[in-house]
C-alpha cells in the first residue's frame, strides 16, 4: 500500500534535485575560465571576479540545500508509505472470520 501523498513528496524531491543539477551546471561556473587576469585586469575587473566567486558559492550552497530538502521529502514519503502499509495490515487483521 502507498499513501498518495508520498508520491507528491517524491515528485517534489525529483524536481528539487533537477533544479540542484541546473544550479551546479550553470554556465556561470565556467565563466572564471574567461574572466581571469589573462582576460582583463582593473579594479572593477577584480570586483567582478569577486562577485563571480561569491555567486558560484551561493549557487552551490543553494543546490546543497535543495538536495537536503529533497532527501527530507523522500524520508517523509517513506514514512507515509510505511504508515499506509501498517494500516493496511491492521485492517486485514480485524476482518471478522465468517
Amino acid at each position, binding site marked *: 500500500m502507498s499513501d498518495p501523498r508520498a508520491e507528491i513528496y517524491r515528485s517534489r524531491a525529483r*524536481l528539487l534535485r533537477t533544479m540542484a543539477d541546473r544550479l551546479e551546471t550553470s554556465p*556561470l561556473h565556467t565563466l572564471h575560465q574567461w574572466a581571469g587576469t*589573462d582576460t*582583463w585586469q582593473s*579594479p572593477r*575587473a577584480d570586483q567582478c571576479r569577486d562577485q563571480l566567486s561569491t*555567486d558560484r558559492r551561493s549557487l552551490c550552497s543553494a*543546490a546543497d*540545500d*535543495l538536495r537536503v530538502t529533497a532527501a527530507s521529502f523522500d524520508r517523509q514519503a517513506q514514512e507515509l508509505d510505511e504508515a499506509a502499509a501498517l494500516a493496511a495490515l491492521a485492517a486485514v487483521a480485524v476482518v471478522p472470520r465468517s
Partner: protein
Amino acid sequence: MTEVFYDPDRMATLYVRADEAARDLASITSQDPAAGDAVVTARTSSVHLTATMLPLIRMIAESDALLSFVLSGLSGGAGPDLGRSLLALAVDILERDDDDAVVALRTALELAGRDRVAMHTFFTGLGGDGVAELLLALGEPDDDDDMEHQLELAVVVRDGLASTTRVSSLPGAFARDLVARMVAAADDEHQNGAIALSFLFDDATFDTGFLVAATESIVDAELSSSPEAPEDGFMLWFATMQMRGPGSVLARALDEEADAGPTSELYRGGDPMYAVMESVARNGEAGRQLFIQAPIAEYLFAQRSWMDDGFRSIADAAETATTGPAVGPGADRKVVDQASTIASAFVNRAGSRGHVMLDDRIYANADVTASVAEIIGAHMSGVKFSLANPEGFTDLGGAVLDVPDDSFGANVHVALFDRESLEVMTDVAVDDEHGVATIRAALDIFHADYAARAVPNIDTFETRDAFVAEAMLESASLEAFFIERAGHRAEVNGRAADRVVTMWVDLASFGADKAAGATGPFAPIITTSLGPIADAITDELATHEAAARRDAEAYAERAARQITYVWYKALYDHGVLVPAILEDLGVAVNGELISWSAFNELDEQVRIRARAVLENSTGSDGFNLDTSTVIERIKTEQLDLYQQLL
C-alpha cells in the same frame, strides 16, 4: 596599484558566455515553495551579471582603444569596415538561415552600437527592403531556442535602426522601400508584414523624417488597396489578422493584457497603423507634417476605421500635434498656423463621423474625451469665432481665420469649426466629468486672457462701454454653449446634470486661479497644461458636497456675476476702474482685484458692498459701464438653461 589590461578577443568570449549564463539563470523557476530561496539565488546571480559585468564589458568595448574587439571572428575593425562585416552576417542569416549568425550579429550590433559610421554603413547597405527582409525572416517560427535568439536580434536591429535615423540621415527611399516590402508580406502565411511593422514602431523612437515617410507610405498602401472605399483601407492587413498557426515571433515583443481589447498591443498588432500612430502621438512635429496634408487628414480623421483601439491613438496624435508648449509662445509661426489648421481639420473631420463618436461600443471612451477636450480647450479662441459666425464654417479640411498678432508681426491662423462637427466633438469632450473640468479650465483661462489683453486696448474702440458689455455677453454665450452640451451628455450617460452645473458654476475661475495670469500679446492657442487643472477641479468637486444646494435662479445669478467679475478684474487691474474703497474692503490688493475664488471667501456683506461699488463705478476718464443691465441679460439666458438641467 592594479595594472589595467584587456585582451579584446578573450573579452568578446567572456561577454558571450556571461550573457548566456545570465539568461540561463534568469530562466530558472519553480512553483514549489521549497525551491523559493534557490530561485532567488539564481535570479540574484543573473542580475549581478546583467547589471555589473555585461555593462562593464560593453563600456570597455565602446572605448576607442578596444572597439576592435567587437570584431572577434569578423573581418574589419571599425567604421565602414565594421558595417560591411555586420552586413555579411545579415546576409548569412537571410541566405543560409544561419542560426549562429543570428547570435553573432546580435552581439556585434550591441557592441558596435556607438559606431555611427558602422551602423550607417550596415543599414544603408541592407537598404529599407533588406531591413524588412531581415525582420520578416526573424519573425518566422522556429524551435524555441532559435526563436529567442531571433527576437533578441530583431530588438537590437530595431533599436539600432531607430538610433541611426536620429543621428544620420538614411536615403530618402529607405522608409518607403521598407514599408513596401512589409506590405508585400501582408498575406504571407509564414512572414507577417503587419506584425513586423507593429513591432518596428512599438517602443522605438524614430527620426521625424523617417516616421513621416513610413506613415505616408502605409497610408498610400492602404488607400491603394481600396481606392473605391477608403474606409476599408485597413483591410489591407485583414489577411494577417485572420492567420492561424504559430504566428510571428516578433509578436512576442508586443505587450499582452489579460483582456484582449483596445489597450492590448498584441490585440491590435495585426494592424500596424496603431503602433505607427502611437509613435506619431509622441512626436508633434511628425503629426503636423502628416496631418497638414489634406488627403491624409481626411483619411485618418474621417474615414479609416480605428475600432481596435477605440480612436485612442489617432486622437492622441492629433492632441500632440495641436496643443502644448511646442505650439505656444516662442514657437515658429508656421508651426502655430499648422496646429490651428490641424485642430480645425480634426474637429471638423472626426466630427463628420457623427454618432459613432458618441457610441461607447465604438469610439466614446475616457481617453478620447480627454484628447478632444484638450484640443477644443486649447483652441477656444477658434470656438468663440466659429460660434459668433451664424453661417458657420463648412470647410472640413481645416478652416482658419487670419487674426493680427503682434508677437509675429503678422496675422496668425485661428482654428475655425463647422458648427455641426463642433457640436459632435464638444459632446465627446464633455462626455465625462474630467472632460467638463478641462473645458471649464480652458474657458476660465480664455476669458481672463481675453479680458486682460482687450482692456489695455479699449481706447481703440469708439464705444468702449458697449465693447465691454458686448464682450461680457459673448463670454456668456460661449459658456452657455458648453454647459448646455455638458448637461445634456450627463443626462444621456445617466449622470446627474446638477453635479455638472455645480462644477460649472461653483468651480468657475478655479482653473484660472491655478493657471498663470495672462501675459504677452494675443496667442491663438492656449498652451497652459489643462490636465492638471482639470484634475484639481474634479478633486475639488469631490469635497464640494458641503456647499449649499442652489436653485436654477441662484446658479444663474452666480454665473452672471462670475462672468462679469472677470472683466471687472481686467478693468481694475489696468486702471480703467479705480474705486479706492476696494482696497479698504480687501477686494483689491496692490492694485489688483482678488481672484473670483478669493472674492467668494469674503463675508457676504463685504461682497454685496463690493459688487455695488463695481457696478456703479465710473472710470476716471468717463468710462461708465452699466453692468446691472448686462448681468440681468446674462442671468436671464443662463436661467433658462439651468432650469432645463436642474
